[in-house]
């Protein structure tokens, strides 16, 4: 049997190859948690128990994914490390910083801020070194983790990415892993020093199923990303959509892709990625607008060859009667 590309407890979820389809080996495993808070805490405790001989590091950004992870460990009062890798550019900070500072204050945790302050030249070198095509966030994360591991080789990073959707088709509801086209390259799944909080054990998905079966409004949506329950169940603040390298924009509060919570589709980042590339090419590499347009077009063509469409792996399904409200 091949190795599991995911780090999951007892291989309950098994990914046979980097571009393969995950297989659900064992689900459900536990009893249902009846609140998101309980499910997150149970998940954190499970991870802590299995990795307590390592330096467990919660890598925090300003977004709700990593904040849910940090919430869980903080609420469970577990002795882990909270780190924010701050990528500033000529002392221009990322805007997400306010969300980290406020979160740390509210939940009374110490966050170690590790600052990478790029100059124009050092950032240019970095982009050349990683052969930047897309997903700058992944490359920045990889660099920061690699640097951190040199100091703390026993570190185990806990990541907050959430890939799960509630879906409905007619009278059937599904809870599905959403394998986004960015997933194979964007994720840290091939890194043995990182695990994905949401996937590690089944607690969170079991809670999602419990809630999905119970709550008709969640059933009524044709698509809903349960990560957004953090707003309505945990009271997390609505916030601007965060992207990496937000220092490249002078305005963090517009346009509407920034200030919109799209509970069905995570689309905003791609719109921001385009602006980001444009800025990198014109400001860092000093290309003309015409050259930049040409290169961006070339990027897009290559991307289409690299990424496929979204695929879903159903963890559970059940029948519903909310389709009577459809037209």
């Amino acid at each position, binding site marked *: 049997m091949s190795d599991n590309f995911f780090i999951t407890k007892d291989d309950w979820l098994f990914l046979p190859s980097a571009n393969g389809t995950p297989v659900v080996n064992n689900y459900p495993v536990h009893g249902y948690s009846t609140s998101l808070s309980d499910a997150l805490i149970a998940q954190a405790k499970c991870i802590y128990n299995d990795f307590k001989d390592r330096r467990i590091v919660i890598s925090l950004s300003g977004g709700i994914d990593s904040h849910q992870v940090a919430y869980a460990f903080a609420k469970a009062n577990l002795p882990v490390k909270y780190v924010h890798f701050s990528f500033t550019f000529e002392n221009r900070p990322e805007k997400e910083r306010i969300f980290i500072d406020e979160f740390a204050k509210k939940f009374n945790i110490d966050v170690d801020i590790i600052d990478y302050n790029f100059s124009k030249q050092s950032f240019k070198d970095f982009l050349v070194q990683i052969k930047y095509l897309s997903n700058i966030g992944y490359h920045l994360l990889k660099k920061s983790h690699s640097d951190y591991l040199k100091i703390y080789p026993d570190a185990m990073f806990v990541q907050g990415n959430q890939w799960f959707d509630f879906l409905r088709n007619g009278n059937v509801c599904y809870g599905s892993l959403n394998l986004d086209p960015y997933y194979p390259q964007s994720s840290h799944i091939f890194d043995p020093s990182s695990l994905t909080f949401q996937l590690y054990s089944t607690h969170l998905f079991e809670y999602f199923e419990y809630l999905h079966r119970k709550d008709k409004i969640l059933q009524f949506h044709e698509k809903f990303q349960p990560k957004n329950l953090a707003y309505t169940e945990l009271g997390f603040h609505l916030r601007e959509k965060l992207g990496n390298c937000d220092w490249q924009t*002078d305005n963090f509060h517009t346009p509407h892709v920034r*200030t*919109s919570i799209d509970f069905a589709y995570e*689309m905003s980042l791609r719109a921001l990625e385009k602006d980001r590339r444009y800025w990198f090419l014109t400001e860092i590499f000093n290309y003309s607008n015409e050259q930049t347009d040409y290169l961006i077009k070339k990027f897009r063509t290559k991307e289409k060859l690299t990424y496929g469409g979204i695929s879903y792996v159903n963890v559970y399904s059940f029948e519903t009667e909310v389709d009577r409200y459809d037209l």
Partner: protein
Amino acid sequence: MDNIWNTKNDWLALYDIDDLPVVNNYSLNDDGSKSLSDALTTQARIIYEDFKDRDIVISMSGGIDSQQAAYGFANANLPVKYVYFKTSFNSRPEKEQFYVEEFARKYNIPVNIIERNYTSEDVKDLVKKGNYFKDKIATAPLILFNSLYQEYISQNPNSIFVTSTMMFTFSRDKNLCSGGILTDRGTFNEVSKRTSNLKLKIIPFNFYSSHLWEYYEYVHRQELVLQFHKRFQAKNLAYTELGFPLREKLGAFDWFTDSFHEPETKTRIDFANDRSMLSSNKMNFLMHFWGHSHTQALKLYNTMSSHYTNDFVRFNLYSFETDVDKYDL
């Protein structure tokens, strides 16, 4: 001059529909509410105390505005009536009924569903009577719901409606935060027009007394994240403070669409701008009821003078300095 709005002791007054409101009496009270739930409940109690000799009717839709009003009364356990006007077109119902029913179940309130099934001719009639295409401030919900309110009141003369359009926005310009009304002229006028037509029959829940807006000021001064936004519509606190479920954007007359769950304008909650879906109604009306093609409808639509497009109403109730601008670039 008369106050167009029905507000307690005229604390907030609108003397001319094309003008801005005037604050006659407002101050942040130290003993005010410290949670949205408490603020809504207190606001409901104040309204109940002032109008308990009348039949208070909470007009509900599936959206978070009216449901916050209903929450206030339900949480205070006050003996009021909850009504949902279910408007169907050729028996195609509005999708929001689902949200009304789920809310009623959760908060254990009886909602009286009053159904009106319109035909094309009925709608044309209403449009004509409401001067929909000529009156600059006529909106489809206005012409529709005013007639429903009037009909209800004629049958229940002691009733008084509580309506709720939340128009309150937190704003920031560098190191200066402010709170007040920031909305498109269409929404503002719709709220005002409804009140002016039926002044003694309609209570605007969110600003009848200053209680709710005092809470907004309190939380705005308290929360740095709220201060950091350049624009944030306070109505959205219902999601994070009350746990109201995120939901598709509801427009009046969703009968026109076959899909309620897409495109993304339906599933996006823009906390900065409440992108009104009202203006699309005129196009829909022209196509569905008058049989115009999309091109013809667009041509006609563009000739209509409208207050919706670029005109905004801005009015500050309070302002204060902040240091969150240190996080700006």
